[in-house]
């Protein structure tokens, strides 16, 4: 497309060129001018935030108290409240009730048998949808038993079963509170923003400080991570209830409580269940990360294997997480649907005939407990019959590495040489005052002086903390990944929207990618490319691809059919139709998808620190291993700042595009 270059476009182009040139030669320039501070933020100017923060947390944990109740008492009380149900479930599913605490005569019960658990999920699957779903979840749980992952999986399941009700219920309560008090929502909104952009790792450290190493800490971290979307969805769902329904509720004389629980919440139940599903998926996402501060189970298996570089074992445990995630995800979705459906109540008959499945499970439970004394296989799946694929994966990797080492190496070197390193060098070479100025300018152009102030302020803060260089590495890694994810994802999304068959296949791929916990991406990539930036990039791209595809497909599909028809009537070829009608109109949506991709990429950064990147993620990770609260929080906040800047800029851009097309005023 040939466009007349007016003055403004010329200035923009000039600024971009200057920035790139500065990036290339900034280092030499600063050396020549003897002004090294231009590129390297002088350490004398660094304001240390981390020490006061560390001291603050220490004070909180050791000394803070209101009257006789110290802060530690509060955290202990919380821990106790979470621990009780968790212990109960853990004993039920995994450990068994081993000691008769009060008196010695308490009957010792073994954990629920694998047969009973599997039957129960099959029955639940049938109840929620049909035999197809029942077979799927049954197969998932059988897989866990046969491949020897049962015990770990049950530990993980126990923590999921604790975290999800607390996260979903707590989120619902907070959401209701914010709905009732508009001030609450205004207070809550920035907090939620920050909670969703701060990488999880950053708050693992303070949690570790407050709750100590162990499953309770892990649960607390998981709940904090999984709750914000539930709060958001609750507020949105309640607000979306038809105002007439609210008027109706008040007109029949409901009290505030009746209005909420009998009118609003049931009317919004469909959206609310989407929130619950989100909580479940996020909880499973946290499984591995939470194992860093003491959660056992599958996450711990993966982490331990990753640390030993035991690819086979890690892969197996990783797949087990995926299998568990798929089962729980499908079950919860089907359950949500089922709740929205019409179920004629069954009248008459006895309880047993009305609850055939429940009865079956209970009877089986009793049977296995009694007969299990004589036939242990009824309680624990016999070890001798487990299969392991660990060696197989080891062999595959060995085979690939022996025979295709050069190919992998060539791919890796190619990308590093011609794609990643130039970006890295340029970004690190840009003098920080110039970068801050450019960001401020960009903010001003995109969203006025407030956004300019935000961009300038936050980037300035990053510089002052002395993390500029690491932040630039973060931007480089994230930027390279986002570029790659966009280049792959947007065309895929367009294809999915235009071609039905491709759409089905791509939809399935994206669904699968989104169900996988973020860690799992690392395992195969590390196997093939070993540690380093390239590995990190591939893992990030895989993780962050989904929204780029989804939003692009959604945007293209949603172009009004009138406009398409207008294009066809004007004689557009299919190609022209795509280029001149569909793409421009889908642009705002595509931009939002890229925005989501950036957010996901940033959240994945810390995880990739495990494979040896040298960015803010690594800073957080180091802080975690050293239990250095201040350092972790500062680096975590720096990542959050980058995320906020990117988010606001892209959103302002998308809004601008929508206004240009008259889709928004």
């Amino acid at each position: 497309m040939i466009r007349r270059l007016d003055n403004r476009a010329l200035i923009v182009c000039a600024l971009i060129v200057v920035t790139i040139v500065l990036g290339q030669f900034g280092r030499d320039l600063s050396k020549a001018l003897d002004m090294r501070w231009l590129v390297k933020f002088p350490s004398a100017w660094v304001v240390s935030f981390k020490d006061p923060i560390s001291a603050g947390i220490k004070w909180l944990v050791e000394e803070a108290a209101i009257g006789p109740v110290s802060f530690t008492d509060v955290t202990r009380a919380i821990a106790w409240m979470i621990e009780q149900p968790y212990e109960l479930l853990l004993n039920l599913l995994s450990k068994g009730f081993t000691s008769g605490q009060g008196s010695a005569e308490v009957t010792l019960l073994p954990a629920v048998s694998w047969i009973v658990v599997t039957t129960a999920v099959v029955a639940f699957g049938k109840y929620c949808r049909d035999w197809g779903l029942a077979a799927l979840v049954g197969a998932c749980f059988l897989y866990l038993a046969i491949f020897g992952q049962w015990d770990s999986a049950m530990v993980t399941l126990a923590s999921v079963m604790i975290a999800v009700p607390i996260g979903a219920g707590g989120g619902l309560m907070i959401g209701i509170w914010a709905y009732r008090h508009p001030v609450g929502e205004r207070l809550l909104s920035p907090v939620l923003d920050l909670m969703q952009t701060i990488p999880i790792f950053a708050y693992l450290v303070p949690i570790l400080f407050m709750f100590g190493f162990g499953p309770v800490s892990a649960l607390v971290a998981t709940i904090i991570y999984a709750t914000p979307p539930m709060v958001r969805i609750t507020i949105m769902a309640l607000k979306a209830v038809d105002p007439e329904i609210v008027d109706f509720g008040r007109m029949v004389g409901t009290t505030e409580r009746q209005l909420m629980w009998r009118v609003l919440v049931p009317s919004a139940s469909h959206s609310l269940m989407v929130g619950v599903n989100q909580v479940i998926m996020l909880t499973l996402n946290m499984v591995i990360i939470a194992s860093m501060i003491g959660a056992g189970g599958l996450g711990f298996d993966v982490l331990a294997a990753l640390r030993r570089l035991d690819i086979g074992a890690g892969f197996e445990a990783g797949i087990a997480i995926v299998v568990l995630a798929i089962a729980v995800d499908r079950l919860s979705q089907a359950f949500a649907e089922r709740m929205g459906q019409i179920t004629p109540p069954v009248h008459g008959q006895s309880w047993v005939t009305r609850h055939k499945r429940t009865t079956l499970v209970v009877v089986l439970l009793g049977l296995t407990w009694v007969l299990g004394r004589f036939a242990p296989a009824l309680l624990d799946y016999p070890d001798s019959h487990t299969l392991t694929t660990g060696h197989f994966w080891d062999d595959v990797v060995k085979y690939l590495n022996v025979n295709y080492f050069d190919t992998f190496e060539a791919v890796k070197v190619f990308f590093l040489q011609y794609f990643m390193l130039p970006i890295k060098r340029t970004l690190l070479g840009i003098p920080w005052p110039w970068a801050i100025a450019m960001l401020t300018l960009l903010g001003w152009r995109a969203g006025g002086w407030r956004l300019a102030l935000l961009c300038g302020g936050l980037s300035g803060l990053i510089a002052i903390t002395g993390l500029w260089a690491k932040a630039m590495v973060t931007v480089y890694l994230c930027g390279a990944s986002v570029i790659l994810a966009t280049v792959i994802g947007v065309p895929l999304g367009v294809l999915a929207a235009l071609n039905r068959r491709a759409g089905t296949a791509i939809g399935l791929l994206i669904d699968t990618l989104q169900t996988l916990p973020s860690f799992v991406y690392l395992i195969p990539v590390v196997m093939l490319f070993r540690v380093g930036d390239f590995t990190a990039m591939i893992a990030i791209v895989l993780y962050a691809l989904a929204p780029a595809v989804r939003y692009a497909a959604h945007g293209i599909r949603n172009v009004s059919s009138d406009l398409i028809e207008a294009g066809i009537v004007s004689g557009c070829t299919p190609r022209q139709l795509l280029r001149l009608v569909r793409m421009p109109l889908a642009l705002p949506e595509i931009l939002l998808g890229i925005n989501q991709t950036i957010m996901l990429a940033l959240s994945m950064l810390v995880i990739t620190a495990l494979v040896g990147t040298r960015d803010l993620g690594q800073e957080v990770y180091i802080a975690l291993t050293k239990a250095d609260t201040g350092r972790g929080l500062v680096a975590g906040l720096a990542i959050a700042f980058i995320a906020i800047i990117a988010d606001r800029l892209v959103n302002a851009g998308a809004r601008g595009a929508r206004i240009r097309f008259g889709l928004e005023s």
Partner: protein
Amino acid sequence: MTSNIKLSCRNIWKLYGADTERFLKNTPAPTGSDLKKAGIIGAVRNASIDIAEGEIFVIMGLSGSGKSTLVRCLSRLIEPTGGEVLFDGIDLLRATDKEMIEIRRHKLGMVFQHFALLPHLTVLQNVMFPLTVQAAPKAQAEAKAREVVELVGLKGREDNYPRELSGGQQQRVGIARSLVVEPHLWFLDEPFSALDPLIRREMQDEFLSLQARLHKTIVFITHDFDEAVRLADRIAIMKDGEIIQVATPEELVVNPASDYVEEFTKHIPRSKVLTAGGLMTKGAGGSGPPIRQTDRISAVAERIIMADGPVPVADNSGQIVGSIDRQAIAHVLFGAGGGE
């Protein structure tokens, strides 16, 4: 309207903007330009109406005229900025939350434009809902609910869910639900606007026959002047938050208060609005069996045209009060205002 006043509102204002209450206190009767200067939007401006017991009172206005806001002020779903609402002599705006809940539970019913049915409850449960929140005994509530479901002609659909019903049926559920507590005052907020024209007409007829049995005091909102004329005992016409005219359909047609009102009445066939009483020449006269004062011209036109001379008109007690001749009818049907 000689019977006693059930609901009356005095000088109701609903203003949107900053610090509207103080504004209204300082300028008790702001004009349009006053509001504009203060940057305040007047959704309802100085509305006063009296609604008699057993009357169908229609509030008619185009969208944005403030009719929905006014009815929500009357039922206190919206807090008016100023004025008073007297229901059976009690000022609703002074009632505490608790008193308001009691009044709504037992004395008010409301039907909504988009039905506002609860999606998770069956027809029967929806209709029972107002009784459920009062914690009424379940068996009694269910019996009462079945009774009103039958009244609106939905017997046999009790266990269906709202989404399984057509629009007309859904609104029948809405009507049944609002009647289950036997309200003294019945609000209907554009109840038939979301329905197809044919169904709408059918529902209007049923509404009238329902009212003939129940004799509720009704506040009915509509944007459809035809509907207003068909149903109303009296009509209040609203424009830009103000009530322009309150009158019977006949008065509106004969004496529109402004060009705006006339614009609506123009397209209404006069013979369907005017009554024999309004058209007759006073005094005794005519021959043959009398027609009634309240008969619409369209219903008696043929008889009068076929008659040889003037036809007598009787009032409700059967006393002859006047007569109508052919010319008068011809004037209504074909003359000025008849077909224009």
